[in-house]
């Protein structure tokens, strides 16, 4: 097969670039330790997630070690529980694992301006672990269409100074 010299050069350059892209993603996973949303959250009963042993009453819980917290969030038409009627509160300088599921249709869970961004799928639990350094306030939005009130589905997340966070806020 006859391939022009420039074309061959281009082909090699394109392949090199593709390998480079795959390399950066691999580095992100292995080197930088970026964890994808995957199947580790397990499955729950879509109509009553809290009846399943791996999903608790929505709210903030102490994690496996000091400074770690687990936040259980239920997404449903058109609320985040907690998050919408009252903000999710976690202390600064902490590691937080969000456990998100839905009890009706597919929703999205996005912490605006961050890379905390996952689908809330009925029957599945999404887990995302992140570190919060500074006190800050973030918006929460549902970024997957979920019904005629989709645009009202929002909330907020407050990362508060550690001194302002008390154990009474923990379930």
């Amino acid at each position, binding site marked *: 097969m006859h391939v022009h010299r420039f074309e061959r050069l281009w082909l090699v350059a394109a392949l090199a670039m593709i390998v480079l892209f795959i390399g950066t993603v691999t580095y992100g996973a292995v080197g930088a330790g970026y964890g994808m949303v995957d199947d580790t959250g397990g499955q*729950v009963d879509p109509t009553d997630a809290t009846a399943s042993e791996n999903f608790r009453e929505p709210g903030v819980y102490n994690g496996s070690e000091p400074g770690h917290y687990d936040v259980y969030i239920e997404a449903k038409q058109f609320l985040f529980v907690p998050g919408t009627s009252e903000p999710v509160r976690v202390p600064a300088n902490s590691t937080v694992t969000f456990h998100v599921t839905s009890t009706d249709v597919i929703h999205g869970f996005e912490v605006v301006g961050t890379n905390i961004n996952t*689908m809330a799928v009925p029957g599945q639990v999404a887990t995302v672990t992140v570190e919060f350094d500074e006190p800050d306030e973030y918006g929460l939005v549902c970024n997957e269409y979920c019904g005629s009130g989709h645009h009202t589905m929002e909330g907020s997340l407050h990362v508060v100074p550690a001194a302002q966070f008390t154990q009474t806020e923990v379930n």
Partner: protein
Amino acid sequence: MSDRLAFVDKFPSAARITRLSMGVSFTALTIGALLGIVQALHRTNVFRGVISSADYYSVLTGHGVLLALFFTIFFLTGIFTWGTSRSLGRELPSPRFSLAWFLLMFSGAVMTATAIFGGLVGQIPFSADVLYTFYAPLQAHPLFYAGLAAWLVGTWLAGADWIRTYYHWRQDNPGERIPLQMFMIVTTMLMWYIATLGVAVEVLFFLLPLSLGLIESVDPLLTRTLFWFFGHPVVYFWLMPAYFAWYTVLPKLSGGRLFSDPLARVVFILFLILSTPVGFHHQYADPGVPEGFKFIAMTNTMFLLLPSFLTAFTVVASMEYGARQRGGTGYLGWLRALPWGKPAFAGCALAGMMFAAGGFSGIINAGMNINSLIHNTLWVPGHFHLTVGTASALTMMAISYWLYPQITGKRLQFYGIAQVQPYIWFIGMGLMSNAMHRAGLAGVPRRTAEPQYQQFDFAPVLGSMAEMRLQIAIGGTLLTLGALMFVLVMVGTWLAERGRGRLRVDSHLPEPISGPSDSPRVLDNVKLWFVIAVVLVVIAYGFPIYSMVADGALNPAAPPFPV
């Protein structure tokens, strides 16, 4: 040229199917574009008098389904019918069979559209505000799914019709190389048969029975996975008619001929093989899918860049060759020698340029980890309005300026409007898409009726939210104007008198510089490539789908909404 017989004179039956398909395609484009401007103005808060925010989603569903499925794929059936007859030099075997698949597709499209627009009329009990992705357990009226199924079966029969024509030609021409256009049609359709399997199973076994009340619940993750099994390859099904035009017509429009026929074949084989095993890259943010499968999809997706990179080279090289044939000189000076005043050329070239930009934002989407930053934000529609909304759509419009006179025997009307139209589209998309990309980086979600929220403000890195919204509104308005200008030219031509004036198009397609004889024969062994494609799909999807159905195909069981 007036002295050359137009396509319609040589193949009246194929020309009729092409005209019918294009008629439906352009009707869908008109309605879809009008819905587009309603959305652009509503969600940017510029003008909200037409619909309520709750009805926005029916409009959005209509925009997505009419443009992404019906405009694009009726155009595809039109241009592929033309390409089959043109490249083989024969009619399709049975005009009645061709008409039958067209009518099946058409009635399916009408059913689906009826269900969607029923949602805007209070007294009608239909609705289908489930968007183009129709994720279960959100539920539409059964008419929506039944229409999609009928339409899909119609596309399968259309493919069978073209492949049957090829088979007849093969019997009369044993040992000859498959003509390039026919090769592209066959590989595209084989990809389509593999890819649509997912959505066919989803609709026929789960969503239609659910909407009819025959089953009580579905597994949302399984149906979503079946959707995306189809959902990414359909992207290439939109793009293949554009590639088909860029490879076989654009070189001639730029004054030259195709650079390399063998590499064009390699590109289509790569699309056949790699298009389907990438669907999990739409599910990077999904729980319940192991990271490993996402990684496999990511590597496949990155390799799928290869055929597009090769296309970029071939198309630009063919254009440069054409420009130099026309007397262009210099490193970049040859660009000036291209026929920028000819609407068919200008549209294809501008579409190609936008596709390059869209390709780069697509690489971000494919990057498994940085994807989290833009997943389901306005970045995503910003991206695909460059790919399907420009690379495909603008090429389809541009090539119609060249093709439509040949299949009608009528001279193109309103030529001045046709000359300006691709530039209007280009500017409109430039404004809308760049603002969408930037808003996405600030975290603005896609698919929502409201520009802002009560509990927080978006903090863009560059520019202000008000400025981005204004750009989206102006861009969306220009795009609608561009679509209507195109439709005006087409309707004007359709109504024009036949045989008056020269056709102003030359239907001859020159031979490539490097022809099919330079390519190894194994490229034409489509059966082999089909088998490889199926094996790759089984590797990418076999285990994940098995693990989702191992605990029962309806488990975890989510009931439908609204009930």
